[in-house]
């Protein structure tokens, strides 16, 4: 037997159907908020749990200690350091892989694999083939993504230049590793699978090639539970200092880990801060919709109360309406969030080389999303429901008196004399309901700020691209040498046909200190009047490198908390191993990394190694590149060549992929918020003023003139929201840029007109769309019916 719906349930169903447009708009806003929450929380869980499991299963080290050359027995001393659990030594070097299809060789990190089969630290994960046979020195394992980028499979051979000598190796396997989840070519920020390789090779073979038999040049360390990382790092540095240590670092400073951990941290921040904006907007919308419903149903409420329904029962009816909308929105959001999460995962796997990455549903985010939606919805509804409690049945069943505009009418009465009557109606409504109008303005402005800030950030990346590749670095190619070379090598490069300019560079590993603050990195020595690579001030003017003193990049000056004129300690971690004090002579802008610059001669004299270079910047004639690259390929002292054009392209590709979809999503969100607000405000206003609007039509006003009275206030709300949205957006951008900028990369805030134009267009577009829907219905409404019904 089919049970008939209880009358209140039937009313609820019909009410929902009547306000379906508004309900859908609110569900959309709630849905997006919950979707973001589910997606971001899921991504955080997916990335962090996969990362942690990967680290654990493959015994990723917690301390990394590079050294020039230390005898193997030093490992025992490291093991004795309090807090150290295991120590494993290895050999690490750089080489050049000759890819036949490429004009220039590809830089590669070369790492030793222990000969024994026991589990070891930074264990590789074979994706194809096998590990090298301990007895066969020509067998290597290649980084999986690099092999795939060049279609190299186990069984192929590759040519590698190692320590100046060229050899042929057999690729017997491909692998991934927890230390290369995110990796980019040295000095670059964006990974490009094709341009940076990693080779694993049996330790004896690598030791022989690099002249490190019986010694190591990197120690990997794991720690006991509760060990203090900084204390261990200090002890490790002390043990390794005599052997030329540039300074040990912990997992938190490991480049690959930093990128993925900062991505996770950024997502966590967003997951906490972005969804609440949508929830607040939804609460506001539910408040105005419930208020209107209650206002228009005051007679029914009076009647129900007269029949003996309690306040709670009557309120419960309206709470159900609100909760149904919130729950539907939240459930839609959960599904959308899972869908978005699954769509986003492939983007992550492009840049983060994890063995697997599945979108992990966080059940708790479902619960949080649903509970939050229901809570904010009830909160929004509760404000409106206070009116139900206040109404006595008799009062409710009397027709409502006209809303009192006498106070609003007093506002700006001298200005009013210049306005026609329809405009006065618009102005007085705005003045009479300041909270509702401010809520609408704030909501639209918040939505706009959200999209504007993301648009500005993405415009900022174009600036990074331009400044980094066209203003700071104007070279066509950067050459690095196997060891420090005499300065005459630069002249040799300059004599290559087609090279128009060659400038020296010397990179020296240092630890910069100011009191307790320190930073491990490198100092870049440049020619004083360097043209191809320059230190630039905040106005993009070149900073002349002084013969005394150091120029720090902005993030480095921040880390060390110093300004121009302050003194810092430069702890040189190679060669002379000197510790000197020097003055900060300038602050250079930098968007990628946190470099420090010195005059190359000054740096060389600090090192006690005059006229040495570690690389060169080249400017090359168009059309001569191939001949030059062939010549470079044949030079044994060349350890690597990187082309500015390729680095720029890789950056551009990432921006196009990631930024493209994010721009779209952010635009859609701003549209949804604006549409949700304006459509609801418009519908409520239309409903409240049906009689006013019909009266105007009866008096002989055209539809367009009538629409002005209704849409004028929405236009005003939108117009006020636009400048506020711009201000909020600028503020939010500054916060985001500051929050996400690290010493790895800086996010510039570039107030590009395009970003503002797009954000404004989206808001105005959403306003027009909701205005059009209301306008369409204005023509359909029955004017005589509206006039005869009692409000």
């Amino acid at each position: 037997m089919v049970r008939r719906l209880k009358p209140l349930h039937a009313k609820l169903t019909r009410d929902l159907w009547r306000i379906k447009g508004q309900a859908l708009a609110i569900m959309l806003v709630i849905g997006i908020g919950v979707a973001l929450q589910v997606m971001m929380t899921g991504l955080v869980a997916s990335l962090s749990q996969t990362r942690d499991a990967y680290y654990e299963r493959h015994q990723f080290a917690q301390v990394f200690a590079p050294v020039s050359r230390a005898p193997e027995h030093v490992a025992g001393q490291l093991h004795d350091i309090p807090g150290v659990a295991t120590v494993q030594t290895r050999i690490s070097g750089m080489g050049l892989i000759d890819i036949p299809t490429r004009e220039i060789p590809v830089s590669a990190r070369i790492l030793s694999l222990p000969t024994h089969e026991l589990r070891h630290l930074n264990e590789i994960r074979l994706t194809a083939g096998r590990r090298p046979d301990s007895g066969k020195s020509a067998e290597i394992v290649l980084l999986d993504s690099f092999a795939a980028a060049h279609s190299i499979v186990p069984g192929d051979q590759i040519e590698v230049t190692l320590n100046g000598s060229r050899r042929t190796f057999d690729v017997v396997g491909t692998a991934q590793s927890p230390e290369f989840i995110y990796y980019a070519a040295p000095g670059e920020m964006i990974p490009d699978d094709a341009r940076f390789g990693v080779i694993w090779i049996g330790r004896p073979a690598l030791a022989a090639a690099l002249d490190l038999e019986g010694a190591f040049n990197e120690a990997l360390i794991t720690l006991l539970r509760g060990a203090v990382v900084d204390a261990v790092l200090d002890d490790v540095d002390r043990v390794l200092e005599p052997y030329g240590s540039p300074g040990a670092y912990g997992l938190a400073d490991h480049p690959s880990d930093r990128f993925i951990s900062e991505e996770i941290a950024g997502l966590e921040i967003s997951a906490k801060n972005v969804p609440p904006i949508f929830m607040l907007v939804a609460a506001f919308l539910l408040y105005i919709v419930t208020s209107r419903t209650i206002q228009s149903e005051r007679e029914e409420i009076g009647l129900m109360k007269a029949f003996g329904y309690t306040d709670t029962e009557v309120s419960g009816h309206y709470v159900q309406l609100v909760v149904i909308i919130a729950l539907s929105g939240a459930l839609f959001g959960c599904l959308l969030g899972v869908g978005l999460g699954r769509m986003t995962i492939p983007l992550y796997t492009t840049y983060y080389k994890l063995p697997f990455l599945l979108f992990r549903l966080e059940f708790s985010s479902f619960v949080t999303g649903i509970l939050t939606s229901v809570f904010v919805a009830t909160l929004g509804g509760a404000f409106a429901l206070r009116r139900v409690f206040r109404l006595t049945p008799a009062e409710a069943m009397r027709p409502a008196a006209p809303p009192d505009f006498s106070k609003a009418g007093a506002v700006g009465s001298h200005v009013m004399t210049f306005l026609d009557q329809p405009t006065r109606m618009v102005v007085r409504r705005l003045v009479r309901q300041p909270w509702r109008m401010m809520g609408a303005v704030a909501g639209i402005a918040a939505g706009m700020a959200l999209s504007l800030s993301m648009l500005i950030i993405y415009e900022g990346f174009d600036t990074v691209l331009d400044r980094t590749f066209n203003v700071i670095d104007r070279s066509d190619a950067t050459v690095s040498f196997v060891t420090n070379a005499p300065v005459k090598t630069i002249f040799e490069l300059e004599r290559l046909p087609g090279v128009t300019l060659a400038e020296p560079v010397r990179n020296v590993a240092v630890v910069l200190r100011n009191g307790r603050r320190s930073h491990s990195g490198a100092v870049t020595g440049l020619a004083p009047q360097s043209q191809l690579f320059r230190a630039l001030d905040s106005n993009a003017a070149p900073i002349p490198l002084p013969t005394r003193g150091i120029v720090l990049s902005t993030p480095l000056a921040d880390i060390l908390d110093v300004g121009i004129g302050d003194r810092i300690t430069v702890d040189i971690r190679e060669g002379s191993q000197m510790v000197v004090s020097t003055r900060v002579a300038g602050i250079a802008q930098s968007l990628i990394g946190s470099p420090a610059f010195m005059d190359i001669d000054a740096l060389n004299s600090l090192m006690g190694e005059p006229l040495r270079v570690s690389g060169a910047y080249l400017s090359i004639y168009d059309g001569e590149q191939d001949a030059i690259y062939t010549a470079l390929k044949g030079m044994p002292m060349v350890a690597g060549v990187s082309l500015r054009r390729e680095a720029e392209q890789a950056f551009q590709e990432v921006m196009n992929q990631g930024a493209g979809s994010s721009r779209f999503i952010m635009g859609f969100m701003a549209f949804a918020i604006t549409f949700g607000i304006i459509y609801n405000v418009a519908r409520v206003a239309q409903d409240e003023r049906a009689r006013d609007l019909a009266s105007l039509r009866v008096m002989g006003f055209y539809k367009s003139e009538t629409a002005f009275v209704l849409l004028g206030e929405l236009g005003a709300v939108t117009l006020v929201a636009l400048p506020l949205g711009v201000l909020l957006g600028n503020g939010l951008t500054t916060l985001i840029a500051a929050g996400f900028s690290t010493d790895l990369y800086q996010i510039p805030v570039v107030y590009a007109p395009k970003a503002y134009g797009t954000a404004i267009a989206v808001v105005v577009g959403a306003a027009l769309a909701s205005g059009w829907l209301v306008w369409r219905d204005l023509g359909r409404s029955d004017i005589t019916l509206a006039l005869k019904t009692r409000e």
Partner: protein
Amino acid sequence: MAKINEADLAKAYVVEELTKTYGEGRTAVHALRGVNLEIGRGEIVVLLGPSGSGKSTLLNILGGLDKATSGSAKFGGMCLTEMNDRALTMYRRNHVGFVFQFYNLMPSLTARENVELVTEIADDPMSADDALHLVGLGKRLDHFPAQLSGGEQQRVAIARAVAKQPDVLFCDEPTGALDSATGRAVLRVLQDVNETLGTTVFIITHAAATAAMADRVIHFADGAIREVVLNKERLAAEEIEW
């Protein structure tokens, strides 16, 4: 805008075989079933009849608020039944005023501004102040509807309707929401308007006694005119008993 035909000057409206049907087939509701009628200029016409008898439908069509299904309704030389929306809007703007049971004032405008709403778009209006003086509200010009009694609100509505100096005034239950004394005062105002401005006035009412102030009383039943009574003498509004 078509000019009013001089030959038809004596007739405000000529209605022939006017029908209005809502819906189709078995569910069709015949609100007007072939109404024929002639109304002279300057008459006060009272329409009586039970709810759903068709009087409001006729008023809506004559007022340019609704369209007929068939037949014709002419105002002067203009055929209302052939006009499009825009022409009907102009007709309402220039020739007719409306007064409704629930006043329909703009709550956000003062009494004077409510009237100005109309005078701003009319061709040859009287001043808003004059219109409000005409209905006896000269001292309540700057009050908002919320500050006025029901009778006062209805008088503002009448002032708003007559300020454009319309040819015709349509009043649908103008006293329906008022007590008898206030209702009588409102009827007095309508009579004044008719006498001073020569406006043709249509009044729909359930109060049969109101018929005594009319020139012509039309009784409706089932979508048709059952009887038309022409009064030889009109009573003053104050003399009406109800």
